[in-house]
C-alpha cells in the first residue's frame, strides 16, 4: 500500500528506485545493528558467548554501524519512504 502511496505522491520515482531504497533502508538499519550490539553484549555477559567471539562480533557490528550511518546520511533527502 505504501508503495502505491509513494508512487502517487512521487510520480517521477520509479518503482525500482523505491524498492531499491527500501532494501537499502533495511540493509543499513542502524537501530537493528544497535540491537545486535546489545544482544552480543548480553550474550557475553550471561556466558553464552566467549570473549573472543564477543570481541570479533563487536568489531564486525561496529564496522557495519559506521557504514550504515554513512549510507543513511547519503540517502537522507534522496527518497523518503512512508512507513
Amino acid at each position, binding site marked *: 500500500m505504501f508503495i502505491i502511496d509513494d508512487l502517487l505522491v512521487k510520480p517521477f520515482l520509479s518503482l525500482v528506485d523505491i524498492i531499491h531504497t527500501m532494501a537499502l533502508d533495511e540493509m543499513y538499519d542502524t537501530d537493528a545493528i544497535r*540491537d545486535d550490539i*546489545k544482544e552480543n553484549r*548480553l550474550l557475553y555477559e*550471561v556466558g553464552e558467548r566467549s570473549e573472543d567471539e564477543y570481541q570479533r562480533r*563487536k568489531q564486525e557490528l561496529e564496522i557495519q554501524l559506521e557504514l550504515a550511518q554513512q549510507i543513511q546520511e547519503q540517502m537522507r533527502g534522496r527518497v523518503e519512504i512512508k512507513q
Partner: protein
Amino acid sequence: MSENIYTYGIVEQEDLEVATEGVAGADRIYTVDYRTFSAVVSDIDTTEPERTDEDVEAHNTVLQRVLEYDGGRTVVPMSFGMAFKNKRTLKGVLRSARRALRSTFNDIKGTVELGVKILAPADDATPRENVYASVTDQLTGLSASETENDLFMDRLIVNKSYLVDRDQRDAFDAAIDGIESEYDDELIIKYTGPWPPYNFVDIHIGAEQQGGR
C-alpha cells in the same frame, strides 16, 4: 599539561577522593564544586574520549564507588563521554543546569537504580507472559519508579530498570532471590546494580555549552 576534565556525575557538595582507576587510565578521581553541587571528575587529555568497553566500565565503576562509598550518597550520573575544556567550562555548565539538577536531586534523593533482565533459553518458543506478569507484580510495589527498556532481542522477556529507595534494597534483593529460585532452572536472570539512576534522570547538556567539544 592539558586542563581537560572528564565528568562522571554530580553529587551534593562534598569533597571526595575515590581510589579507583578512571576513564583513560586516570589515577585520581576528585570533585569540583559549584555552589551546592560537586562534579565527580578526573583529568583527561581530550574533550572527545573514545568509547571503549574498558572506559565505559571505568566510568560505571567510578559512579558505583561514589554511589556506595562511606554510607552512600545520591548521584546524578552523566552519560559516558562528557569531557570539558577546563574547570571553568564545567562550572559554567553546572551553573546553567543548576535548576534542573536541583529538581533531579529532589526526585531521586536516597535512591539507586537496579536492573532486571530475564532471558529465555536459545530456541525456546514457550510463551512467557505469565513470567513477565509475575515478576513485575512482585517488583513494582518495592520500587519508587520503573522504566520499561527495549526488548532488543526475541529471547528477552523482561528488561526493566527500577528506582529503589535505599531502605527498600533488602526487600528488593529478597524478591529477586525468590524470583531466581522460582525460575533459575528454566530462564536466565540477570540482576545488576546498584547504579546511579541513569534511566530516571533527564538532563540535557548541549554540546555548545561544553566549550571545546
